[in-house]
């Protein structure tokens, strides 16, 4: 419609910015400089390639790595006398006994009973009843179906164990996190800035890296799993709930202050209730973070569904891993839907949209069959324990058959994709990063950081580069960095294509968004399974899994960023007669560039996390080193050095991307 209108000067006037910005964007000197640095790098690399790469030969270990190993031995030796370590062990064993007790109640035999105190029927009935009480009958049905599927596929105990670890960790996270959120939401600006920086850094650490040090101080098994999980689950609730409390309307606070309330009344009656919805979002994120960590905690013998996944992945039995993997997804969906629905339901109930009297009657009536189920599950063996089911193995076989058929028929396709990406992106970049002498790669990274992000990027990069060199895994770090960068490039391709498409087509948005939301709830571990089937034990599996894992976040960020471009600007562009393509390239993308950089940043961190987990399936680099540290006790120091290097790498890319984003949005 507006394309028909002749270009009206006054319509274009307030939107002079796009052309101006485009001009700044295209020849932007920053990117030209960056290109220059890369060209220079390649030039020197061609002459010096292969020298001073700091690759460690076979069993060779640096002094720092040996020192780390010694440190561990010391910690283990001082369990008897060091009060700090005694304390952490105390805490750990407290969690172990709690989880143990819960397990004996609902998931494993409680000696001398051959079955748990409460059998599957009772547990399911209670869970369904809780779902009915907090979120309504739809959620109750979802919970019933989920719990039954645990048993039907033969993973009742593992699934319930995973839930136990998740719930214990979430409970503690909320207990610890809410006071901190209040502090962040009500504290002054300095408190807020310190906590934000701390959380930022904390959240760049991939799940996998948590495990070794936690296990050292808190022990392996349930204790390590719970502690790692609760630490990982803590930041979302602090950050999101703190934000919610902080953004409560200032007028309302002032109005209620003027009525003479105490600080405590302000918190309890105004700030917390008004931030309630945001706090629930935080709780939801914390729960899902806990689930993904609890899954990976299988590496330190944490109980739950992660263990069968891990076992099958080690033997490359994709069908076997697929079944527990699907159940993890089932749990993720169940928890996500339940927390979200409970919040909506609570809101409705608080506003009188629910007939409370009827609800009470329904719940009381529903309690009768629940009690019957509880009784039966303590009396009849069939209601206490799921019989052996053939569904799990049958599904596993079917999946294996399918992937067998698929790879037989489409090997050329997957192989071709792999070879092409390797030839065009992976190999050249890896050669450049890892085959450069360390001083060349380090210098180039520093220069790039400075060019892209200024001093704010240079300083952290300098510290991280120094740290990487200190811990002696430079070569492996460059290999991991390469995988991360290539993965991020692929993520950004997907994000740009689908993000722009979604922003321009509301229909596609309607279809994709729930899928992406669901994709974001799935723990990263699970993504490895199908990708492994396609690409086998190679670094490529980790990269593709990382891309799949990172894509939902990145696509959503790009879509939202492009959608946020003001319609008047677009209209003005259209009125000058630009094509769709010009509209995207010259207006939408440049104006959404802050979102693009943010998407790239998230992509980097997600792919890095996956590249590390991918150590398990042939990713090489730092991920492999960490896995080695887990597998062999004498390699602990080596694994720990790799873990620290991953953190440094994460902080480095995050800081560079953030500084670049800040410069870009200015």
């Amino acid at each position, binding site marked *: 419609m507006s394309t028909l209108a002749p270009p009206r000067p006054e319509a274009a006037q307030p939107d002079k910015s796009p052309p101006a910005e485009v001009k700044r964007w295209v020849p932007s000197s920053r990117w030209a400089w960056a290109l220059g640095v890369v060209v220079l790098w390649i030039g020197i690399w061609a002459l010096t390639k292969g020298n001073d790469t700091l690759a460690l030969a076979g069993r060779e270990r640096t002094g720092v790595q040996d020192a780390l190993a010694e440190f561990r031995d010391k910690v283990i030796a001082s369990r008897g006398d060091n009060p700090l370590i005694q304390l952490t062990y105390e805490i750990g064993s407290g969690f172990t006994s709690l989880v143990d007790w819960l397990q004996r109640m609902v998931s494993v035999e409680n000696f001398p009973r051959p079955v748990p105190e409460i059998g599957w029927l009772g547990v399911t009935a209670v869970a369904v009843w809780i779902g009915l009480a907090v979120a309504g009958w739809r959620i109750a049905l979802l919970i019933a179906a989920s719990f039954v599927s645990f048993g039907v596929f033969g993973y009742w105990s593992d699934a319930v164990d995973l839930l136990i670890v998740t719930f214990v960790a979430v409970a503690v996270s909320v207990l610890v996190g809410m006071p901190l959120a209040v502090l962040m939401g009500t504290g002054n600006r300095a408190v807020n800035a310190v906590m934000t920086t701390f959380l930022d850094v904390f959240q760049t650490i991939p799940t996998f890296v948590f495990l070794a040090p936690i296990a050292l101080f808190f022990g392996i098994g349930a204790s390590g799993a719970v502690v790692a999980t609760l630490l990982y689950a803590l930041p979302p609730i602090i950050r999101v709930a703190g934000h919610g409390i902080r953004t409560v309307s200032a007028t309302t606070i002032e*109005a209620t202050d003027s009525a*003479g309330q105490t600080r405590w009344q302000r918190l309890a*009656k105004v700030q917390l209730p008004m931030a309630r919805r945001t706090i629930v979002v935080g709780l939801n994120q914390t729960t899902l973070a806990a689930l993904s960590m609890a899954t990976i905690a299988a590496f330190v013998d944490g109980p739950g569904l992660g263990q069968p996944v891990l076992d099958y992945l080690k033997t490359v039995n994709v069908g076997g891993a697929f079944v527990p993997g699907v159940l993890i997804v089932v749990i993720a969906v169940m928890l996500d839907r339940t927390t979200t629905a409970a919040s909506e339901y609570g809101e409705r109930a608080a506003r009188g949209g629910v007939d409370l009297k009827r609800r009470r009657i329904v719940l009381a009536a529903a309690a009768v069959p629940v009690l019957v189920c509880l009784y039966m599950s303590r009396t009849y063996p069939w209601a206490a324990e799921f019989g052996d089911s053939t569904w799990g193995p049958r599904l596993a076989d079917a999946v294996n058959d399918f992937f067998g058929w698929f790879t037989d028929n489409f090997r050329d396709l997957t192989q071709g994709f792999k070879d092409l990406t390797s030839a065009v992106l992976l190999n050249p970049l890896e050669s450049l990063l890892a085959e450069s002498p360390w001083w060349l790669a380090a210098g180039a990274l520093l220069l790039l950081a400075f060019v892209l992000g200024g001093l704010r990027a240079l300083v952290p990069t300098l510290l991280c580069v120094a740290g990487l060199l200190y811990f002696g895994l430079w070569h492996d770090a460059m290999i991991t960095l390469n995988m991360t960068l290539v993965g991020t490039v692929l993520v950004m391709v997907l994000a740009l294509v689908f993000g722009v498409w979604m922003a321009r087509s509301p229909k596609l948005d309607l279809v994709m968004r729930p899928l992406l939301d669901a994709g974001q709830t799935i723990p990263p571990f699970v993504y490895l399974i199908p990708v492994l089937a396609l690409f086998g034990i190679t670094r490529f599996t980790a990269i593709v899994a990382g891309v799949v894992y990172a894509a939902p976040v990145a696509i959503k960020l790009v879509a939202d960023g492009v959608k946020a471009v003001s319609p008047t600007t677009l209209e003005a562009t259209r009125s000058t007669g630009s094509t769709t393509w010009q509209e995207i390239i010259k207006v939408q993308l440049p104006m959404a560039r802050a979102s693009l950089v943010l998407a790239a940043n998230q992509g980097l961190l997600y792919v890095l996390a996956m590249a590390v987990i991918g150590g398990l399936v042939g990713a090489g680099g730092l991920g492999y080193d960490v896995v080695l540290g887990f597998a062999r006790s004498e390699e602990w120091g080596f694994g720990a050095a790799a873990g620290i290097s991953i953190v440094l790498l994460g902080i480095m890319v995050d800081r560079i991307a953030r500084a670049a984003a800040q410069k870009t949005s200015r």
Partner: protein
Amino acid sequence: MTIMSERQEESTADSAEYALSVRNLWKIFGPRADKIIGTPEADLPRAELKRQTGCVAGVKDVSFDVAPGEVFVVMGLSGSGKSTLVRCLTRLIEPTAGTVQMDGVDVTNASDAELRDLRRKRVSMVFQHFGLLPHRQVIDNVAYGLEIRGIGKKERRAKAAEIVSLVGLDGFEHSYPDQLSGGMQQRVGLARALAGDPDILLFDEPFSALDPLIRRDMQNEVIRLHRELGKTMVFITHDLQEALKLGDRILIMRDGEIVQIGAPDEVVGAPADDYVRDFVSEVPRSHVLTLKWVMRDPRPDDSMDGPVMSCDTIVRQAAKAVLASEHPVRVVDRDERVIGIVDDDAILRVVVAEEDHA
């Protein structure tokens, strides 16, 4: 608390007869603000002060008194410091210097507990953007002040229901704020302020966010409530019509300073400077000025047969009688002494000048 207020009353006997008494109040925003008062920098114009020290003077050396039952209006352009001033009265913004006394109680030196007590019982405020609690029903919003005083649910709800019907919201007790129109939300704000039965009500541009018709309704509502309850009110506005309609006296502010304090007819009849004159130039003078402002001194040859009118009669109300009478009107003061004469010319001068203007 009581002991303290007694002591205060003794020491400041003169201010106790006022509901509110403000002396040399300053609020300077910015670093090291307290160091500025008393130095020559304090006398700088606002922009200059900001340039030299980075501080903004929100309120500069303001003093005034409000009598019990008076409606005191504070007026000024945006940024003149009205909101800052009214917030300093209950220390929602901490004043930099000066004193505020309410019924003889020194607000500026009250402890946290005393201040809370004061806010709970003596003074309430109505806000431009309402500031209601979205998660509470109307009745519980109104009862909020009682709730935080620790009054039981039944009692406070009964009291709140009374107030809800006083402001004309019968039937909406159990609605949520977002289900009400802006005007109704502000009625809730008004009810909330009234619920604690305070002596003083503060209003910060309470009707600016409402459309003109609703605004007029709400102004009438305030006038009605003032007549029924007789509370002292400090009313902030940037709307001169509103100020003239509601105010017993008007304080006009500019850049944090007082420009003029006076009754509506004083402000219109004798503007203190061009700023005020500009402000009041659009006002229909015959609606505001009283005979006092248009009369001339009596002369010996004046006819003594005309009707007698009080000097506080508004010109517009007197016009018909003056023009109808054959003899000039004699204007008398409260003691029935004749202090001036108003003839047709005097009336026409005001009315015609207005029409010229329009």
